[in-house]
């Protein structure tokens, strides 16, 4: 870690359209930077690819599958256990394991498990809630939730160099380049 500026989080470039941002992201990746992230007010198609995020970054579908299967299997076998072992009740001589009658509850719990895992899995993987982040120290960053598009090169990046990286951001048409500092 070459950290001449210990409190420096990175450099933030501002763009006014998603197209310019994507273009810049591609060029910065070509220049060899890897620890970069974009901040946008709405999901931009193709941005993940431009930043080099592959499918492996997205564990949400797998978590959802686990949640759904877990919910469904628990729901089904719980009902089987209740009706066959814990509290067997003979109703008009019908079989104790009357599984078709267990399907509605099994289905509902599959959906419930899948949904809970999808939402809380997404939040956990995104490390949210996260009340503090150095980017929030930048006044202009407020517009990341409105009409501006930002690209941040983190100071952790092995290629990071304050002046050179700033020049690179300017050369890819960033309107403003701001230093992001983690002041406490």
């Amino acid at each position: 870690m070459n950290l001449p500026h210990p409190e420096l989080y990175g450099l933030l470039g501002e763009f006014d359209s998603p197209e310019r941002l994507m273009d810049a992201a591609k060029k910065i990746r070509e220049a060899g930077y890897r620890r970069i992230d974009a901040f946008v007010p709405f999901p931009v198609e193709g941005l993940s690819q431009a930043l080099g995020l592959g499918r492996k970054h997205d564990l949400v579908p797998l978590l959802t599958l686990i949640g759904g299967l877990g919910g469904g299997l628990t729901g089904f076998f719980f009902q089987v256990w209740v009706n066959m072992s814990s509290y067997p009740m003979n109703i008009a001589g019908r079989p104790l394991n009357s599984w078709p009658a267990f399907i509605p509850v099994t289905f509902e719990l599959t959906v419930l498990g899948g949904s809970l895992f999808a939402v809380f899995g997404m939040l956990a993987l995104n490390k949210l809630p996260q009340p503090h982040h150095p980017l929030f120290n930048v006044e202009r960053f407020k517009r990341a939730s409105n009409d501006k598009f930002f690209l941040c090169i983190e100071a952790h990046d092995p290629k990071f160099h304050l002046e050179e990286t700033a020049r690179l951001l300017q050369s890819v048409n960033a309107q403003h380049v701001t230093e992001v500092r983690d002041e406490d």
Partner: protein
Amino acid sequence: MSAGDTHVNSPEIQRLARVIEPGHSYATVTDKIASIVLTRPTSLGWLAGFSIAFTLMMVLMGSIAWLVTKGVGIWGINIPIGWGFAIVNFVWWIGIGHAGTLISAILFLLNQKWRTSINRFAEAMTLFAVACAGIFPLIHTGRPWMAYYMFPYPSTMGIWPQFRSPLIWDVFAVSTYGTVSALFWFVGLIPDLATLRDRATNKAAQIIYGMLAMGWRGSARHWHRYQSAYLLLAGLATPLVLSVHSVISFDFSIAIVPGWHTTVFPPYFVAGAIYSGFAMVLTIAIPLRKAYDLEDFITMRHLENMAKVMLATGLIVAYGYFFEFFMSLYSGNKFDVFLVQQRLHGPYSSYYYALILCNILTPQVLWFQKMRTNVAVLFVMSLVINVGMWLERFVIVVISLTRDFMPSAWGRYQPTFWDWSTFIGTLGLFVSLLFLFVRALPAISIAEMRELVHTSEDHE
């Protein structure tokens, strides 16, 4: 094709095809929607509307308090009519909720752009309708403080709920539906809460929206996972919404009561639910776009499309009525035939005719585009359908229960003051929640509207 081609470029056709009026940028969309919550002063109209709704909500509280004091005897129910208003209203409210999920999940999967500006408040409507619906079975149990018996918890009595009963399926279906709808709504809100946090100037608003936004900063990595979670939730909510009213129809169709024991019930209930739900979305959308000048975002295209969905689902409902009628006669079962006679000539026949008038005959005017693009007609139509769908549930519950098999076990049902006050009270609760929602949260998804601005720029 050729007949339509000459009209395609006419300004009128283009006006009707727009999902957002031209001239909007990311910033104007953000300003316009966020200002309703953040900067717009509370209007007298809002205060007046909220006061009325809140008063009615207090009527609900009073009615429930009296019910808990005296018991369900204050209602008009008595054997053989054990269900009455509580179940009629429950089914009606749950049905209304269905349109919200349909708009947010099914239209999302079908990539329908016109869902964007109506999904947020439609989802809010779902949540509030489910809240109103949930009250009824709870208080109908007579001992609402014992309601936890319906959940499978390890009790010292060593007993479990009866999982073969549709009433227990209902508990699972409705509670899952409420939870998933809330999750879906909240996930959709996160980016907008961040917008409100960043724009709020008042300290309390910054803190509250800041906590709710959970530090969302629009990172591309976050959006990536967010989008897959949203898509998966839509995929899960789609079968869920179809299952909920199906399960509710099982409450009826698994019983052997004439008029209930039919296989057409699940699809016919689901279509009816969507029908009434879209009617309620229109009932809310029309005053909302007027009061907050949202005509640019909730355009004629939205209203017309909703009218088309109502027409289509209304026809499915009509098909359901016809086959209910036909199968009863065709079965030759004398109790079923008798039920048809009761609907046509019995003591509650006026309700049945009113139902046919509201749900089948009047909505046929929606075949005409002139009617579908007339806001006043649509508003009246949405109210008529809401009433019609309530009558449908009344007819199903009351006519079948009052005259089932043995004449010695027949009865009559007359709703009392407390039946009405509880029902009207839930309308107050629903409207109060909507009023609060419009003032506290963005009624239209800002992030999705920006995306819409972006994609419509691409096409021009």
